[in-house]
């Protein structure tokens, strides 16, 4: 997929996020929107996956360690063809398979249940280890929040991944700088993030999370890195794409009301119009 097509897709993913969270009247739009470009690149370009065969044994795996941004993952999976986009409106509703946090038993394309922060990365490490045991060449990707790095388990998992040289594992940090209680530096700073992963024997790449050239180059570099796992620190803007949510911690876990929903969709429609002009 070229950059323009990826940008258009990421905007579709963002519309799905806003629609789902608005319909649910709850959920986490901020961190879903900040990672929309990463999600889109993974599922539309990087990963070896097949929506028609979600459990194919040799597929690449993705674990959403920051499980609360499920709307971002669900919207991506829906747009990729795992389930109908229309179903996004059932998010968090009683009886819907689209649970508030990812549930592998009921959602096509979800490789691991997650939501309790710090746990997803360990499962991803287990998957990567399994590939190494069997000499299989599938790769494992996991997306973490920067606030999530405050969980000690993240570093237990990182220590193991580095020590066991799991070069089939890519840890992506959605570094939007905000967590529920405020700026990550004010709450309990995980910075410097890149140096920490380096110290845990990772190859580390810093990128702009909204620049597809940089995203593409980083995942290519990760694939070419042997003998150590890769950490991609994706510097992002929380709420990206929706004017009143951008950089606002208040939109970490809050749904837009009807009026706000209109403004948000209008913002995203404008982006569509701009993208339509690009060649």
């Amino acid at each position, binding site marked *: 997929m070229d950059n323009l097509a990826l940008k258009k897709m990421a905007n579709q993913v963002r519309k799905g996020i806003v629609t789902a969270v608005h319909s649910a009247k709850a959920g986490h739009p901020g961190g879903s929107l900040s990672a929309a470009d990463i999600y889109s690149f993974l599922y539309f370009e990087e990963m070896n996956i097949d929506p028609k065969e979600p459990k194919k*044994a040799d597929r690449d795996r993705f674990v959403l360690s920051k499980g609360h941004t499920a709307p971002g993952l669900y919207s991506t999976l829906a747009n990729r063809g795992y389930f109908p986009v229309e179903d996004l409106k059932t998010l968090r509703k009683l009886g819907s398979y689209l649970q508030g946090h990812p*549930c*592998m038993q009921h959602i096509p394309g979800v490789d*691991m249940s997650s939501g309790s922060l710090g746990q997803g990365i360990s*499962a991803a*490490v*287990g*998957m990567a280890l*399994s590939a190494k045991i069997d000499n299989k060449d599938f790769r494992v990707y996991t997306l973490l929040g920067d606030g999530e790095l405050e969980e000690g388990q993240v570093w237990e998992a990182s220590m*193991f991944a580095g020590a066991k040289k799991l070069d089939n594992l890519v840890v992506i940090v959605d570094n939007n700088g905000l967590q529920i209680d405020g700026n990550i530096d004010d709450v309990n700073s995980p910075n410097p993030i890149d140096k920490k992963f380096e110290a845990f024997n990772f190859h580390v790449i810093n990128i702009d999370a909204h620049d597809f050239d940089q995203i593409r180059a980083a995942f290519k570099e990760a694939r070419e890195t042997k003998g150590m796992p890769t950490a991609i620190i994706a510097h992002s803007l929380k709420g990206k794409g929706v004017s009143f949510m951008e950089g606002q911690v208040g939109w970490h876990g809050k749904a837009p009301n009807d009026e706000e929903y209109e403004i948000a969709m209008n913002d995203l429609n404008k982006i569509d119009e701009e993208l339509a002009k690009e060649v």
Partner: protein
Amino acid sequence: MADKIATRESYGNALAELGAKNPDVIVLDADLAAATKTGIFKKAFPDRFFDCGIAESNMVGIAAGLATTGKIPFVSSFAMFAAGRAFEQVRNSVGYPHLNVKIGATHAGITVGEDGASHQCNEDIALMRTIPGMVVMCPSDDIEAKACVMAAAEYEGPVYMRFGRAACPVINDRPDYKFEIGKGTIVKEGKDLTIVATGICVGNALEAAEMLAKDGIDAEIINICTIKPLDEDIILKSAKKTGKVITAEEHSVIGGLGSAVCDLLSEKYPVPVKKIGMYDVFGESGSASALLEKYQLDGKGIYSQIKEYLK
């Protein structure tokens, strides 16, 4: 008395046997391979053994990830850390997605001995049995412990197995012994009262029954290895026969076998129940046998507590 062997030793031996049969079996430990006896597996199958270091939460998560790819991971540590430290990982990364992870928890209960209260887990059965879909087993001797491990590998879904540090007598060496997950066994028939026991307390209850017999009390003893799912029929049938139930476990009386039996009987056949176990207290340092004596969980202690209760 038959030979004594600790069920952690049985765990290690069974894993090595299982490893030869099933190439999908992977064993994980958290720097305790010598104590949990997974070292026996490590020696036989070094490529399928992973030491996660002193990081039990991550180890449970790794096991979950392995299970999603079709492996059958056995994670091993002391009960205190496997069920205690990593409780939420077991709950959310293993229990909720119902993954095929087997938890081999050794050094359960006060028979950890000299290490003292920080390492004596009397709460693990309570913790594990609250997780939906979790099978909880506590074998009574070497034979049952091995059978437990083999059955766990055959079963699809999460399993918690509780093993002990101290050597205990072999009590199930009879030709008709057959192990099945969810099935209890009557190890001694009787008519006056029922002792429902698990783990090392089964052997100790047998000793207590001999003493009770001298006083003219004929106790029936049920061995409950699988605390969840509980064999309701065997307990109800015996309770209806004797009308008096005593539970015995090397675990807190809060939330363990005793509570499980009370949950059952209070709903389906209310009879008086006396729960024998750790009475909402922490243990302490001492030899396993001295601790069992002090907390009245050895044969004599169980006998004394029953006699006191019957007064």
